[in-house]
């Protein structure tokens, strides 16, 4: 299981009004573990009011910059991103898991490829890492970036992208699409929709020349662009996706306080929620797992190993209490938030409510 390591914050730079770029340094013994691949992300954890919160942010540095750096845009109501934007300072230490993610293609120094990137807002972070790495390590490859933002002053890394254009003349081009700001070319104003994609492919980008496309942004943008890329002849294995932070679930809610105390009754009334419907049944003995009871009652609950190892059967205990015989898959913070492995969960109270939907 991936473990957390301390990273020292060596720099916090304000990038836009609501985004910061944070430079991090692993301990010497962790350097190898943090030797990232372009386009990967880091998962951080931090306690907020006694509750652990985990958030992933993409690395924006290129492989040749010799640093670990992430971009963090403040999200409305987002505890971690607000804290990072307002209170994080050099010298602080952040806990992070080693880099993860498969949002990249392998570098081939002799390759003569044309990459196309689409980034929406802070979705630029992993794409920037890929752009820098590809341009530096594949001297014959080209990169075209289509970058969507609300307005000019919300564009992250605007200057850095301009510098890259100058550094790699003829190999890197950027098309800025601004939602609320008029530009000389109408096509570059408004949201990226199917119409705009057609316009881009008609006049600005030769779809047939594209080897790989990278998309990172919010859900509707990913759908629109992926559909258009397929319409223009790209196959699934030519399209790489990274769904950005909006898809992350909200703060892990605290485990609900049990409404009942332990008791000695031998039976339990179990309510199981699955796919939005709930079913209640009686468990006649206390030596059966909640999963087995649900299966015996014809509920198609997910499971695989039934040995507390794989975590397929993870559920959330909403009411009552259960005890797990073994747990090799859930971390402490998940257990504190009320999650349990249903294959191992024996009820302790005469009523339990569990959900596979949360």
């Amino acid at each position, binding site marked *: 299981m991936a473990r957390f390591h301390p990273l020292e914050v060596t720099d916090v730079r304000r990038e836009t009004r609501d985004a910061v770029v944070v430079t991090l340094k692993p301990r010497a013994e962790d350097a190898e573990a943090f030797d990232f691949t372009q386009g990967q992300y880091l998962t951080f954890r931090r306690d907020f009011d006694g509750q652990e919160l*985990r958030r992933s942010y993409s690395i924006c540095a290129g492989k040749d910059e010799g640093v670990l750096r992430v971009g963090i845009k403040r999200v409305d109501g987002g505890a971690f991103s607000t804290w990072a934007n307002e209170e994080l300072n050099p010298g602080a230490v952040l806990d992070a898991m080693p880099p993860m993610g498969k949002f990249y293609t392998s570098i081939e120094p002799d390759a003569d490829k044309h990459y196309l990137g689409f980034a929406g807002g802070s979705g630029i972070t992993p794409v920037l890492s890929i752009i820098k790495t590809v341009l530096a390590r594949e001297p014959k490859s080209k990169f075209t970036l289509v970058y969507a933002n609300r307005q000019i002053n919300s564009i992250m890394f605007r200057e850095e992208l301009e510098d890259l254009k100058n550094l790699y003349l003829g190999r890197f081009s950027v098309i800025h699409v601004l939602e609320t700001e008029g530009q000389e070319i109408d096509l570059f104003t408004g949201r990226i929709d199917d119409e705009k994609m057609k316009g881009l492919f008609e006049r600005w980008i030769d779809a047939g020349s594209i080897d790989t496309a990278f998309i990172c942004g919010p859900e*509707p943008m990913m759908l629109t662009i992926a559909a258009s890329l397929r319409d223009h002849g790209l196959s699934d294995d030519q399209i790489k996706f990274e769904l950005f932070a909006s898809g992350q679930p909200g703060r892990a809610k605290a485990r609900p306080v049990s409404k009942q105390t332990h008791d000695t009754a031998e039976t339990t009334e179990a309510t199981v929620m699955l796919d939005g419907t709930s079913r209640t049944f009686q468990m006649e003995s206390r030596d059966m797992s909640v999963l087995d009871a649900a299966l015996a009652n014809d509920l198609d609950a997910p499971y695989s190993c039934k040995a507390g190892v794989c975590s397929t059967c993870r559920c959330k205990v909403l009411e009552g209490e259960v005890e797990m015989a073994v747990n090799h898959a859930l971390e402490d913070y998940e257990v504190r938030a009320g999650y349990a492995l249903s294959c191992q969960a024996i009820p302790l109270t005469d009523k339990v409510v569990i959900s596979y939907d949360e």
Partner: protein
Amino acid sequence: MSDTMNIEDYLEQGGVLTSPMNVPARYRGELLRLMGSFVDSELAGSAGFAASINFAPGIKERIAASRITLEKADHAERVLNVMGSFGTDTARYQNQHNWAARAERDADIGTIRTGGDMRLSVFHYPITGWADAVVMNVLMGLATGVQITELTRLSYAPLAEVFREIAPREARHAELGLEGLERIMANNEQREEALESIAYWRPRVAATFGHAGSQRFETQKRLGLRHTPNEDLLAEWNNQLDTRLSTL
């Protein structure tokens, strides 16, 4: 681009998820179940084929059977690593079951998962000899081809990528089987044995496609984990198999 949408709507419209951090709870469960079934089937398939190496009549066949044994274990490991990113204890998982365990040849298992693991029921039946091993590999190899092609389109990008990597190698296993079956069918004595094996394995492999009108399929489809109904995949396999067998 601050607009977002409900993740269930996104998936229904063909959206792709990219990390354990952005999958909803139900999606997580179904995704892990699908991966568990694949890993268990590959490990059980590999373990079953390991014994067939010693049925091989020659070096060429021995190498083919060894390669299949090796690569199926490798494919299991690749998918197990994706499970690991969701918290699965991968070291424990691979020792959880006796992957070589088999039921009786004439046991009636149907499509019900038996024993502790999630392998497809066909991997509970023992292989009895070289012709039998080759036939099983051809029939199941073609079925795997149809089933993996379906999975290369699934909505969890890191897993879809793994399936796209292993699909050509699984296809090669079926090709190796077909080459072996051609040689067997050219020999009158072995031909009879192979025909019996085809009759034995065909319904058992067909059962791996699951039931028509499956509720599980509807759930998986809603989550973008599947696209083509079981009965259509089964029909595709029957077609492919009939075409291949008709040339032998």
